[in-house]
């Protein structure tokens, strides 16, 4: 045991190392662009240099003349296929090669295909376009944006949550705040570059591309190409970081597929880091106005959260985190309203805790301000406003361990050593600040299928078309099978990341562990039932133990009357070599079409605030110590402590790592990450990893993760709440709170930079 492998507490699984760890440390794990595809031709993108207008002419001659260039796919060459659709499977409705309209800077205008990477790149750089250019609207403050209500624009955001009479409650509140907050554009920047490799064998299309949704992509790609989905296979065995960026398919996939058909051989396009900023999705910039009113005793009576979010002209992507903030505390009255601001930008999309990261940041920074206004300890302020029921629909929480999280994190952090007065804690040249905030993430689950095979020698194979994006889902699925079938984990193999496998939902919304483990559990239980029936049946090795309670352990069927039968003997009696079960799991409350939708690539989410019986969330409390240099105003974060309760923890090692990584993401949100926009040209400026800052090793010191035991049978059969997106939700507000405590400066616009603290 070391720090990376915390001892399991109640309702927690063993911290076994990742099932694919050896492959990952030896360079043998095959990511999409690593996979052999035969005689590959290389492709490169050419992208627009304006953000709004139309292409009048494309000049391809110089590019075609580059030795080794095989073909160029450009505008007009996609006429025979359907345009992309915007939705959960498709990143945008923009079909960049379907028409001449330019919707945003960096839009694909051509794809060059050549014998070598160097030739393809050279050719792409030689492509020029004549544009009829218009003045673009870059963001919130630009001329020409269109503002509209978000409610009803997305199936994920049907209405603005509202309860009680906010206006009168706020008017009569004894203590109140009214403040504005903002979060910037951010790009996921997984270290793996985006790529597509496609080839045709007859009418069969195979695509290697990092994906969080192989089944959805299979269906969508087949629709665009107007072919039978049975002829499309998406393969994505390992994904080099995703964070939402590989959830929706982008226009490039079909373009590369068309290119492969034209040149009659495999085509691989690895997108440059710079071009990814405009051709993939991103986290939309948001603005917030929050009003909170309370009595002098600290009880909140009125809460209003208004949000504004940038999206593209054609696609109404909604962040919509007001539905989460509206349910966090016992407010009395609630008013929320979310607006979309349409600008000449590529379409934003999901990025790790998409609604919660910006909206809960704004709320929690406001909660800290409110605690200051009340002269109250921020933990005590949250304790006073802890709800018994969810405030909008009045439903109970399936479980809510927030206060336990605060207690345990506060103790480990040493909150009692905090001197409340601003600027009172100093260590030489460093101003010390301590802050805290709540993390919350909805617990959802979706239909999922899995196939389990058990052979007489105790080998288990798990097949499920989910995705290993670094979460450890292959490991925990294997653990679930090993536990239920009574074999060691090293006898279990897990196949994922292939649309030819039993379908799984999109690996987004922190649903994978719950959904996959519930399906694996169901398939394993079907195997068990068959084996148990044969074991106690006539002529079976446990005949006569029919009333005993049976289990599987040590490659045996074990009865509680003390008898047992080895699997190998039982298989002999059954005269079989293998037993295989295919299970389809649908969560409670699923629609009659839920499983049909699973095969059609649509994930029907259940949980969060959508269920009839209860609302389901995972909670955490995060504590941060910052040090602000009194001369340079540099901000350092030497210490982070987070305590999280998320139902059953399948593996304390992978859970800790995800939460730790999430908290460090939160440091990035707070202090580093922002995609800067040239307001005149609606163009991203810092399109590389030198200027788009993410936390590096030297930015991070002590990070402590506390796993708080919690049992919740209501959420799903596996009892699991997702935690991949929980860790980064509270951090930024905790940092803002700590910076205020150190300096007396309340920074409301992220990221917090030196220039904000200089004067």
């Amino acid at each position, binding site marked *: 045991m070391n720090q990376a492998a915390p001892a399991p507490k109640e309702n927690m699984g063993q911290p076994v190392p*990742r099932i694919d760890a050896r492959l990952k440390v*030896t360079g043998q794990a095959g990511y999409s662009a690593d996979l052999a595809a035969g005689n590959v031709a290389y492709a490169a993108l050419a992208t627009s240099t304006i953000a709004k207008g139309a292409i009048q002419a494309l000049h391809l001659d110089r590019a075609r003349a580059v030795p080794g260039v095989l073909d160029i796919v450009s505008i007009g060459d996609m006429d025979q296929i359907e345009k992309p659709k915007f939705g959960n499977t498709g990143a945008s409705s923009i079909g960049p090669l379907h028409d001449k309209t330019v919707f945003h800077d960096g839009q694909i205008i051509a794809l060059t295909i050549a014998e070598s990477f160097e030739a393809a790149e*050279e050719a792409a750089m030689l492509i020029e376009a004549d544009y009829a250019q218009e003045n673009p609207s870059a963001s919130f403050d630009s001329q020409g944006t269109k503002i509209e209500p978000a409610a009803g624009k997305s199936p994920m955001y049907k209405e603005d949550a509202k309860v009680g009479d906010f206006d009168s409650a706020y008017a009569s509140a004894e203590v109140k705040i009214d403040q504005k907050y903002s979060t910037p554009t951010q790009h996921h920047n997984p270290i793996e570059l985006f790529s597509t490799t496609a080839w045709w064998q007859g009418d069969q299309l195979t695509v290697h591309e990092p994906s969080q949704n192989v089944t959805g992509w299979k269906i969508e790609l087949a629709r665009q190409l107007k072919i039978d989905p049975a002829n499309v296979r998406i393969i994505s065995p390992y994904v080099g970081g995703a964070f939402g960026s590989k959830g929706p398919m982008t226009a490039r996939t079909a373009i590369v597929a068309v290119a492969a058909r034209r040149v009659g051989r495999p085509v691989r396009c690895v997108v440059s880091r710079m071009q990814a900023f405009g051709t993939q999705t991103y986290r939309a910039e948001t603005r917030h106005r929050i009003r909170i009113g309370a009595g002098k005793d600290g009880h909140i009576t009125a809460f209003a959260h208004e949000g504004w979010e940038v999206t593209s002209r054609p696609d109404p992507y909604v962040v919509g985190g007001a539905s989460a903030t509206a349910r966090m505390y016992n407010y009395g009255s609630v008013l929320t309203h979310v607006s979309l601001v349409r600008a000449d930008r590529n379409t934003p999309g999901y990025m790790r805790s998409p609604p919660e990261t910006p909206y809960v940041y704004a709320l929690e920074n406001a909660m800290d301000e409110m605690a200051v206004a009340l002269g109250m300890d921020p933990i005590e302020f949250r304790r006073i406003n802890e709800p018994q029921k969810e405030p909008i629909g009045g439903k109970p929480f399936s479980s809510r361990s927030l206060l336990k999280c605060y207690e345990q994190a506060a103790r480990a952090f040493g909150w009692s050593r905090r001197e409340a007065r601003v600027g009172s804690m100093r260590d030489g040249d460093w101003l010390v600040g301590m802050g805290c905030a709540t993390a919350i993430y909805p617990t959802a689950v979706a239909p999922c299928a899995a196939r389990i095979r058990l052979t007489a020698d105790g080998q288990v194979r798990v097949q499920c078309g989910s995705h290993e994006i670094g979460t450890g889902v292959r490991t925990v699925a294997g653990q679930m099978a090993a536990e239920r079938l009574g074999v060691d984990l090293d006898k279990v193999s897990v196949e994922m990341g292939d649309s030819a496998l039993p379908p799984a939902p999109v690996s987004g919304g922190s649903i994978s562990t719950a959904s996959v483990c519930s399906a694996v559990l169901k398939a394993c239980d079907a195997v068990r039932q068959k084996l148990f029936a044969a074991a106690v049946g006539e002529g079976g090795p446990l005949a006569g133990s029919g009333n005993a309670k049976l289990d599987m352990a040590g490659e045996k069927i074990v009865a509680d009357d003390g008898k047992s039968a080895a699997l190998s003997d039982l298989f002999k009696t059954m005269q079989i070599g293998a037993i295989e079960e295919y299970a389809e799991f649908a969560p409670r409350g699923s629609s009659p079409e839920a499983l049909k939708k699973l095969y059609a690539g649509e994930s029907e989410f259940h949980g969060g605030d959508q269920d009839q019986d209860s609302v389901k969330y995972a909670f955490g409390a995060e504590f941060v110590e910052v040090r602000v240099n009194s001369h340079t105003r540099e901000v350092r974060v030497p210490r982070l402590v987070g305590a999280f309760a998320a139902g059953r923890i399948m593996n304390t*090692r992978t859970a800790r790592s995800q939460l730790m990584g999430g908290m*460090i993401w939160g440091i990035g949100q707070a202090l580093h990450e922002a995609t800067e926009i040239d307001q005149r040209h609606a163009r991203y400026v810092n399109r590389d990893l*030198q200027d788009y800052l993410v936390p590096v090793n030297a930015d991070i010191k002590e990070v402590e993760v506390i796993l708080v035991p919690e049992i919740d049978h209501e959420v799903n059969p596996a009892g699991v709440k997702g935690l991949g997106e929980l860790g980064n939700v509270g951090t930024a507000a905790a940092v803002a709170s700590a910076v205020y405590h150190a300096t007396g400066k309340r920074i409301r616009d992220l990221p917090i930079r030196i220039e904000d603290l200089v004067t």
Partner: protein
Amino acid sequence: MPKVISTGTSTVSKLSRRSFMSGSVLAAATMPIITRSAKAEEPPSDGQDNARALAAVSMRVNRQSYNFALDNRTSLLDALRDHAGLTGTKKGCDHGQCGACTVLVDGRRVLSCLSFAVMNEGRDVTTIEGLAAADGSLHPMQQAFIDNDAFQCGYCTPGQIMSAIGCVNEGHAGSEDDIREYMSGNLCRCAAYPNIVAAIVQARDETRRS
């Protein structure tokens, strides 16, 4: 173009033999390229195209000799991945900003995306595929990364491990603060940083001895 020939006598492990095999398959599969490339070798009419010419480059990779014929513009990273079939080394930015492509050249860590292959004539290159022993036993740094869960998605991991070995051998792993500083050229977007530091501390002494 991608003509991969092993002239080395085989002292190689199973692993590097497999790498060699995949390189050969690649070469055979891309025969048409050589036709095209031969054209590129003709004197260019405008005299400006020399960057495209093929160069013969020889180097040792993971104790095995490779003779490449490469576009002068080919990076060491692309030579390893696309021409030697050693895809363990990763491309994360192609600009020397992320560290995913880190390999050891003559024992020192190098960003292979910032190094033209032709600059490595006669050098000795070690990639992630060359770390484990012939019997499959892992380098102490590889084992330490597993023990400390020093990765999640695993994509930056080959670069982290190669960089970690370089960091120790340079004498920059004396303290945890030193490790953090000298490992900050290797980005981990999953943010396994505390675990990476713990892994390097665990493997430090054994790495120095190995």
